[in-house]
């Protein structure tokens, strides 16, 4: 049996060993940390608990300091974004010294899943429902524009680090709406919520912002090659949302050029 040994290798944080109404579930196990779905305070309040386990190969004192700093930094950025109206999960609690951060659980699926469900398995480029896809791209551009406007760069913008949260009351409105509409486009509905601020920094620099957009552009092209040609809609809406976008987009040209040179050399 592999389960017990896996538990040995990945013991949950101490906090999750204390009783809860439903058992915590491990959602992802990344290089830097783990994400659990669990409950906070009440059985009815789901939360996402991010945990950075100790790294045995690092000096314990240094490791503790780095972990504490990273968890604090992530929480701080989330709070700042939330205050400024950038759609991100709210922070519920944290214990930086013990490496965990509890935040609002965002319902729905990652944007990556939503787009892929929409595009389906087919080979040919879908044009049916393309308006809805463009609309989702605009909501992504708006979210990123708000983020940059706040003075935060994400550091790892991908469609996996954005959630598509069903709008409250979707069920109620959805029923009457659904009758006349294609079910396929419904997977694109919802509010775009940015997550995973583990690599985020506070920055007002055009260069940093342009790199953020470039990372998203490359990630988008490789994750959703069949929707790549619609990427411009993200940048258009970014421009509408964020006053300083023009200088960032000019920088983006430079960053792309450098990227191309690097890939030719590499």
């Amino acid at each position: 049996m592999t389960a017990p040994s896996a538990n040995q290798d990945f013991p949950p944080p101490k906090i999750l060993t204390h009783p809860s109404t439903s058992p915590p579930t491990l959602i992802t196990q990344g290089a830097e940390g783990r994400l659990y779905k669990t409950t906070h305070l009440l059985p009815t309040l789901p939360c996402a608990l991010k945990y950075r386990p100790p790294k045995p190969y690092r000096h314990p004192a240094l490791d503790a300091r780095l972990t504490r700093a990273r968890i604090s930094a992530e929480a701080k950025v989330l709070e700042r974004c939330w205050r400024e109206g950038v759609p991100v999960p709210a922070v519920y609690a944290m214990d930086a010294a013990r490496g965990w951060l509890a935040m609002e659980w965002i319902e729905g699926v990652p944007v990556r899943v939503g787009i892929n469900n929409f595009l389906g398995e087919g080979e040919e480029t879908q044009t049916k429902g393309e308006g809805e896809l463009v609309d989702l791209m605009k909501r992504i551009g708006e979210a990123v524009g708000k983020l940059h406007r706040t003075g935060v760069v994400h550091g790892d913008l991908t469609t996996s680090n954005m959630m598509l949260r069903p709008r409250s009351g979707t069920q109620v409105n959805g029923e009457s709406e659904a009758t006349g509409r294609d079910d396929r486009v419904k997977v694109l509905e919802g509010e775009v919520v940015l997550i995973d601020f583990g690599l985020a920094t506070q920055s007002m620099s055009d260069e940093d912002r342009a790199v953020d957009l470039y990372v998203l552009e490359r990630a988008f092209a490789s994750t959703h090659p069949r929707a790549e040609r619609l990427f411009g809609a993200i940048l258009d809406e970014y421009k509408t949302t964020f006053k300083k976008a023009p200088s960032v987009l000019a920088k983006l040209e430079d960053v792309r050029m450098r990227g191309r040179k690097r890939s030719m050399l590499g």
Partner: protein
Amino acid sequence: MTLEKIQLEHVPSNIHIYATLFRDVSNADFLHSQLLARNPDFEYAFVDASSVISRFHLLSAVYAAVNALVTGTLRTPNVHSEIVVSLNTNNNIADAYRRWGITPGKTKDLIVVKVVVAPEVSSTETTSSPTKDKPTTQEQQQQQQQPEDEQQSIWTHLTTHVKGTPSELSDANLAPLTDWPKVRKYYRLNAVPALAGCKDDEEKRRQEERLAVMGMALKGL
């Protein structure tokens, strides 16, 4: 009895949390003096209800304090003072007591929280015990106060000494007691861009509650 036992998620089972609300308290001065005298019979967190938004807001502070207790990282003398300080957005203890604690001559409606640490029943001990009904274990269990007795004795003590109307610690009871201008000042909720476009009052309250809880969690970082 309006004193309820509150079971929070991810709290060790030997930690028992009790809470209730007293309205129109007439002896805040006496209660305050007991705290100042460090009377061990008055080991409670007394929280001025006018500085509290909701159950979620209060329980967030209780949870933070219990976590500090469990991890051995209390910044204040005990878990009860820690609850009061956990409501603050910084680590200033005196400041926290002034804002969330009991104020002689002022506090009218009072939230009381009591945290009891019962002897730990180690799970390894229980499972590794070779015989099922070891007499020593039974004796230990008999010595331990029954939870109902514990709750009853806290309740008796509170109703003897707090002169006020016991009320359930519900959102419905707490909401009318909140002094919003004060709370907005404490948690810097004025001129928050995220609240600007919010038309719905109930939704706005929910967002303000979240901002307060975030301020508490971040402690001025």
